């Protein structure tokens, strides 16, 4: 029979769904933790990123050096190692202990800040110098020019890069498995470990990540449209 393998496959799918269905809420719980950690870490990173990004173009040598050093150290070390340092290392030295979720948010936020600083810097650099000249010629100070003229344009230009960064964080939260944050991957591992149904479980986990990233990129496209201004494309193209 030609149909046999097909029927076998369909049966296998049905049994996989039957197995996953009652456990799905556990994964959804994990997905909620993942979204929670990623979102707070992202905005923490945005705060750090905007601050460091501005320092990088401030023209004040000491501040530029400090920002650059921070960015290089973060980008030059693995995220997993950073997570281990914050969760296991910091408490020994300082006596301050974070719970796993808090440590996760903190590490990922500090980490993402370095990457977002580079995004912000490239956005600022992408604004034609004539904009700063025009603002200053009107009597605005350097910082006023930044605030009212340069930053609002730079942030629009780099929206796609920010969305990309958010998607990266969303997926990288899976590394928090090593400190026991009950995020999506950890929840999957838990189910797989006692049922031995690794394949079904991790495929489902992967599917959930995929759908989350898909939703993020769709929402981002709406956001881009909403913030779109004629002549100021989010890609930086001018009419």
């Amino acid at each position, binding site marked *: 029979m030609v149909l046999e393998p097909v029927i076998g496959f369909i049966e296998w799918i049905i049994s996989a769904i039957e197995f996953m269905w009652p456990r799905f809420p556990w994964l959804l719980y994990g997905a909620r933790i993942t979204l929670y950690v990623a979102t707070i870490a992202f905005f923490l990173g945005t705060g750090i990123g905007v601050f460091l990004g501005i320092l990088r173009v401030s023209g004040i040598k000491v501040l530029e050096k400090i920002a650059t050093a921070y960015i290089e150290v973060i980008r030059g070390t693995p995220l997993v190692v950073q997570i281990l340092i914050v969760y296991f290392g910091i408490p020994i030295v300082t006596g301050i202990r974070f719970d796993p979720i808090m440590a996760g948010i903190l590490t990922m936020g500090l980490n993402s800040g370095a990457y977002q600083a580079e995004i912000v810097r490239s956005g600022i650099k992408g604004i034609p110098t004539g904009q700063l000249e*025009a603002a200053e*010629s009107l*009597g*605005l100070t350097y910082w006023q020019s930044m605030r009212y003229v340069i930053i*609002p344009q730079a942030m629009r230009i780099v929206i796609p890069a920010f969305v990309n960064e958010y998607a990266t964080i969303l997926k990288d939260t899976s590394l928090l498995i090593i400190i026991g944050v009950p995020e999506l991957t950890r929840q999957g591992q838990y189910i797989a470990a006692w049922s031995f149904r690794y394949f079904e479980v991790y495929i489902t986990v992967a599917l959930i990540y995929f759908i989350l990233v898909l939703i993020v990129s769709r929402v981002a496209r709406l956001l881009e449209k909403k913030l779109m*201004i004629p*002549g100021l494309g989010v890609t930086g193209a*001018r009419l």
Partner: protein
Amino acid sequence: MQPILLVKDLHKSYGQLHVLKGVSFEVSKGETVVIMGPSGSGKSTLLRCIVRLVEPDKGDIWIDGVRVTDPKCNLIDVRKHVGFVFQQFNLFPHMKVIDNIKLALVKIHKMSEEQATEKAMDVLRKVGLEDKAYAYPGELSGGQQQRVAIARALAIEPKLILFDEPTSALDPELIGEVLITMEHIAREGKTMVVVTHEIDFAREVADRVLFIDHGQILEEKDPETFFTNPEHPRLRAFLRRLLERV
């Protein structure tokens, strides 16, 4: 009478390149002075030095009696009273036309929202674009954008307006509307320094024309003499090239 703008022995170098080699001139109240010269002769640098968007190396500049080149001089106070119109318009693309104009009025000149709106509409009417107040710069033609930029410069009621090749980035058919707007402003008695290659504008509107080449002012005349009887051989060569192009 005290000149609105007085420039004395201005020098500026970029590395090895000596862009301005001792430029001196003055502009009286209500005058329109046109500066001509080949590209790379230092015209744009000169205008930028006046409001210190570029730092001059040596020399002095007075605007309405204030020595701008004084290290203690408050630049903001100077720029507050000098309008600058750029070759590339440099409107802020993320702001509506009216907000482009209101920004400095509200933040620097401390006007209320209503006052600023009124003032902005006032200057937009002057350049014939009051119906575009709530458009974004990207929705306007190049000529309209430059007229908005002129309105933005006018709104602060400047003592002096500097124009840096205001029509050089425009398509030929859009140049006329900008020149007409500038002519209106000149006739109203505004003090203007205009860097341009537009001979007709210089002839009809300028009170004086300066020729600058290799960082030096080589000739300074009323427009009639400047164009019909140029003395310096480099000016003659320059005018010949300019007329050939037309």
